[in-house]
């Protein structure tokens, strides 16, 4: 199997300058490998650094040490040393992030929020909107909501809008941050199918799943994480 992502001795320490320079260890020496077509579940108690790891992989948090190598187009890229321009390109083509938290954009309709990732890579508007409609339909968002900006939607609806936005364009590596949390049974099944389809198309996935049933259905392997030894005071 093609290796899509390699993480070597990744560490992350937050230094809180506003709190007298307290240093919080969030990740220590995390190493893992991910191949095309597989789904790896991050396991471990709250505070073990699962979300922090996903955010480091997405370029959202800056790693304090270690190396992240990602297959991007035809090269292997050291993400930890990539320029912002490169990371934007990587996110456009090679790396997706699916979470339940929708950042609402004033005045933009649900349909266009979902279609946007397709438009970013050059799809025609009509084609992107059609794909968005199909996905919103699958996720049981009623058509009367499609033309409205999601600011006034319920929490569950906003969550599903964001899932649609995350899944509309499968990227070779997909990071899933609790994609099924608080979904009802019918929608959990839809997300399960979306994950199956992503694996089948060759995407490599890393996910956090609090729902045990979902984890055992979609994950091929587990990666156990434990909280690093807490805080240390700066010198």
């Amino acid at each position, binding site marked *: 199997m093609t290796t899509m992502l390699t993480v070597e001795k990744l560490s992350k320490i*937050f*230094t*809180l*300058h*506003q709190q007298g320079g307290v240093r919080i260890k969030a990740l220590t020496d995390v190493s893992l490998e991910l191949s095309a077509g597989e789904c790896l579940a991050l396991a471990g108690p709250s505070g073990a650094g699962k979300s922090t790891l996903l*955010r480091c992989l997405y*370029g*959202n*948090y*800056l790693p304090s040490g270690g190396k992240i190598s990602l297959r991007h187009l035809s090269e292997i890229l050291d993400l930890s040393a990539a320029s*912002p*321009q490169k*990371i*934007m390109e990587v996110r456009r083509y090679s790396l997706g992030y699916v979470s339940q938290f929708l950042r609402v*954009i*004033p*005045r*933009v309709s649900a349909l266009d929020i979902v279609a946007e990732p397709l438009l970013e890579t050059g799809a025609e508007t009509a084609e992107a909107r059609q794909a968005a409609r199909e996905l919103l339909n699958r996720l049981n968002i009623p058509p009367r909501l499609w033309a409205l900006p999601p600011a006034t939607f319920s929490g569950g609806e906003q969550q599903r809008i964001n899932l649609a936005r995350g899944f509309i364009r499968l990227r070779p590596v997909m990071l899933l941050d609790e994609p099924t949390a608080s979904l009802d049974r019918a929608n959990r099944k839809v997300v399960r199918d979306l994950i199956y389809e992503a694996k089948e198309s060759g995407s490599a996935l890393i996910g956090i799943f609090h729902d045990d049933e979902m984890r055992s259905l979609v994950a091929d392997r587990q990666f156990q994480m434990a909280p690093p030894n807490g805080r240390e005071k700066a010198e």
Partner: protein
Amino acid sequence: MTRPILSARGVDKYYGGRVGCRGVSFDLYPGEILGLVGESGSGKTTLLNVLAGRLSPSGGRVLYRGPDGSEHDLQQLSEAGRRRLLRTELGFVHQRAGDGLRPLVSAGANIGERLMAGGWRRYGRIRSEAADWLARVEIPADRLDDRPADYSGGMRQRLQIARNLVTRPRLVFMDEPTGGLDVSVQARLLDLIRHLAARLDLAVVLVTHDLAVARLLSQRLMVMKSGQVVESGLTDQVLDDPQHPYSQLLVSAMLQV
């Protein structure tokens, strides 16, 4: 790899002994929106004015690269050459719309003036292009002959944006474009800027003290303090994992973005 549309190298600006900005270097690529954030007095607007050729730097260089790949040092250009660029390929959106508009001529003439500076001559075409741009910034067509002085604040700001974009510039400088507008007016303007920048593939240098505005519009951020850039990076990285003590202070002081 595409080449930068704007490059700053070691840009300094002193006002007598006082620092406006110091040692600023960066590259901006076509189609990219770069946010400049920091509190009042941090040097954001000084830097913006130097980048746009409106102030001359005390040291360092600013290079603009034209569509044909030619490089222009805005300070080395003749006054006429700089004005021509500022009216065609570059734009500047002021915080106070009045600073970027002629208050006593009609909205249509405000937009048309830039077209005429770019060589347009036929009145009918200029007028229809102006009307088209009014529509794009969501100003009713029947306001074409009104003067900006008779517009509301939000409409005036949208008109200023239309006046800037009508010549299809490649790079636009914006100084707090939503400052001083109330929240609902601000949301409309932000959406418009976001939409037009994407549609026209504009590169933008955006000065704002509002991190929520920066989060919404810009892909990259530079945080300024006392005239210097203390941190730069992807917008979501700088806002979610700020490294410098001052950036952490700014982010922690923000209400919610």
